[in-house]
């Protein structure tokens, strides 16, 4: 510990340089953490989904609907313990610039199916009773300045007209990946206004045992195979994952950029650290003369590099960890539950240790191996 002061004094000699080095490491790792979190958040969203929930959609494609009459036939299958249905609404609010999900659901069965929506009991009852009521995510309250009890009007894009709902209840998702910016309203009201078309966008099927998922999914699809609207049933996880894969190469792109960023800035930083170490040739010779061992000088140089790299890492990674929850970042709705995963912090720290080795090893070895006489003679 007695050498700590020496290390600190060395770092303090070129204060500006040390600060700049730490900051550029911090920026590199902040960016790395941010980019990797996009990938991990997308992956987490793809993992979402209760093990006991299946989703049935139209086999022809996501934009096609199913007859509402399928519900009773699915419910009658052995192993099915619950059923709910929903319909994508695609309404716009205001100028339509801020997108949020909104869909019609069968409220009673839907909320029973999704205990992840945490709603105050009185609000929940109010929503269930109110045929034109809406349940909204808590982010929407802030985003649009809505209040409970207020009427809000959406413009239908798929189902034309002005649709006015009363905000009866606000939910907080127990799992942040679920997103807190959706608006749901009564399917009954929806069906009535579109002229009793009797359609459901998708069914959510609750089953008795996750192990039965493949058989039940097959039973549902077989039942409708030769009807006008064949179905495609899979676990909720598969359903979510299919959305995640729609991003295509985005994850790959993010990781590539992340790597390039880290590599670029670390290169520049390591170079600067090595250059400043080289200036000290004379000093190291003096230290050796007064009795500092080779090993000690090696260690001191490495510690100095380590202090720079790890302080930078702490600021960059810590900053990312704290900043995103603080500004409630969700990637304009595309990245619900955005957070910096622990694995990202660990990898970031390893990168910093790598930087310490890359930038410290050359000067440290040089310091340890340097013959005193030659070093003292060298004029720089």
């Amino acid at each position: 510990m007695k050498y700590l002061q020496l290390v600190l004094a060395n770092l303090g000699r070129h204060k500006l340089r040390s600060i700049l080095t730490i900051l550029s490491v911090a920026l590199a790792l902040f960016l790395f953490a941010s980019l990797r979190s996009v990938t991990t958040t997308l992956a987490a969203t793809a993992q979402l989904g209760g093990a006991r929930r299946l989703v049935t959609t139209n086999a022809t494609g996501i934009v096609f609907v199913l007859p509402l009459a399928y519900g009773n036939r699915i419910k009658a299958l052995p192993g099915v313990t619950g059923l709910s249905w929903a319909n994508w609404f695609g309404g716009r609010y205001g100028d339509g610039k801020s997108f949020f999900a909104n869909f019609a659901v069968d409220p009673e069965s839907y909320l029973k199916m999704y205990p992840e929506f945490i709603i105050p009991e009185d609000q929940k009852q109010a929503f269930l009773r109110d045929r034109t009521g809406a349940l909204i995510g808590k982010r929407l309250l802030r985003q649009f300045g809505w209040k409970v009890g207020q009427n809000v009007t959406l413009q239908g894009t798929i189902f034309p007209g002005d649709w006015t709902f009363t905000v009866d209840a606000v939910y907080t998702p127990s799992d942040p990946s679920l997103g807190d910016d959706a608006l749901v309203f009564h399917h009954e009201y929806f069906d009535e206004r579109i002229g009793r078309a009797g359609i459901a966008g998708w069914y959510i099927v609750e089953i008795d045992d996750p192990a039965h998922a493949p058989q039940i999914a097959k039973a549902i699809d077989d039942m409708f195979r030769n009807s006008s609207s064949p179905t495609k049933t899979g676990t909720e996880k598969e359903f979510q994952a299919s959305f995640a894969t729609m991003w295509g190469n985005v994850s790959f792109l993010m990781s590539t950029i992340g790597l390039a960023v880290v590599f670029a800035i670390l290169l520049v930083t390591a170079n600067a650290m090595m250059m400043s170490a080289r200036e000290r040739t004379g000093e190291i010779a003096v230290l050796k003369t007064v009795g500092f061992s080779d090993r000690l000088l090696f260690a001191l140089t490495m510690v100095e590099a380590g202090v720079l790299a790890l302080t930078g890492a702490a600021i960059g990674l810590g900053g990312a960890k704290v900043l995103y929850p603080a500004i409630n970042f969700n990637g304009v709705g595309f990245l619900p539950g955005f957070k910096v995963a622990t694995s990202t912090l660990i990898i970031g720290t390893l990168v910093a240790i790598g930087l310490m080795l890359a930038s410290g090893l050359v000067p440290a070895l040089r310091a340890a191996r340097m013959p005193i006489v030659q070093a003292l003679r060298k004029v720089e």
Partner: protein
Amino acid sequence: MIPIVYNVRSVVQRPVSTALTALGVGLVVAVFIGMLALANGFSAALAKTGSDRNVIILRKGADSELSSGLGRDVASMISSDPHVATAADGHPLVSPEVYVLIPMAKSFDTTQMANVVVRGISEQAWQVRNNVTITAGQKPTSGRAEVCVGGRLTQRFPHTKVGQTLHFAGRDWTVVCNFTAAGSAFESEVWGENEQFMPVFRGEVFQSITFRLKDPAAFTEAQRALQADKRFTVDAHREAEFYAQQSQLLGRILSFLAVMITGIMAVGAVFGAINTMYAAISSRAPEIGVLLTLGFKPGSVLLSFLAESAFIALIGGVLGCVFALPLNGIVTSTTNWSSFSEIAFSFRVTPALLLVGVIFAVVMGVVGGFFPALRAARLQVVQALR
């Protein structure tokens, strides 16, 4: 003025440190160009979709073709509208279209699904959209279950080449041709006859109606006439503007990412450059002392070191361009969330973009070199020489 040769030689004297700094700057520039090339390519694909001479009609309030719906009656009324151009054979140049999305598994990984656009067109569509060229095979014959597949799909999805059979909507469809459309989003679509698609998809409803204007300058007038028509409630858009607007959301996200990521990177790189130049200057203090003793003005020392820093950054900028160039033309794909459909587009590295990249590098060099160069210029001769 201190001759520039002095700086070039100094840079060559320290090959490793110069190379590392230039490489760092080069990577920053490469990412910068790469990200912008991506945003560029995406916007270009959608901007090129659609022509200024065409009008696309959607149901009022619909913000994409997917959410729109128009009856046959509307289609026939629009066909007889006086603003619609007429082909040589006397048919109105109008294409009432069915637009749906179907899930298709990708060639390289069949667990990855993409929503591909299937567009049912009229016979006239090939003339209305005059940038469409058939590259292989023959146009689908009316009345048969035949489709024409866009050129961007053939590489990425199985069963999309001429002679193969695609299966969707519970039926088999023979692929009879492939087409290109000047790099536009149409190349990521499957086209077939609208009358064939109607019964298997959503029944007697079109999603959009596209027609060629008789007088290209009369768009505003046509728009007013159609939107005021009491017989139907529609929105009329200029086709080019409509597709450009469909790209706005994702285009904006991509540009934002490009600016944010490279902004942070650039600051980091500038910090690195400052450090490198400070270190370079403090190890060359005696040299600078000699220059000042020889009678060079502090101003020219400042300029000289700025030039040196800019020169290193310039090497970096050129390196960055070299790294980014191979990206040009690489096809990537993502979902355009405005239309919910998969769209393929290529990275577009343009000469202008390369120039911007090089300028960006030089600016980083000048900013990074300024304070160190100032210190060099302010060195006291006696101190420096000691």
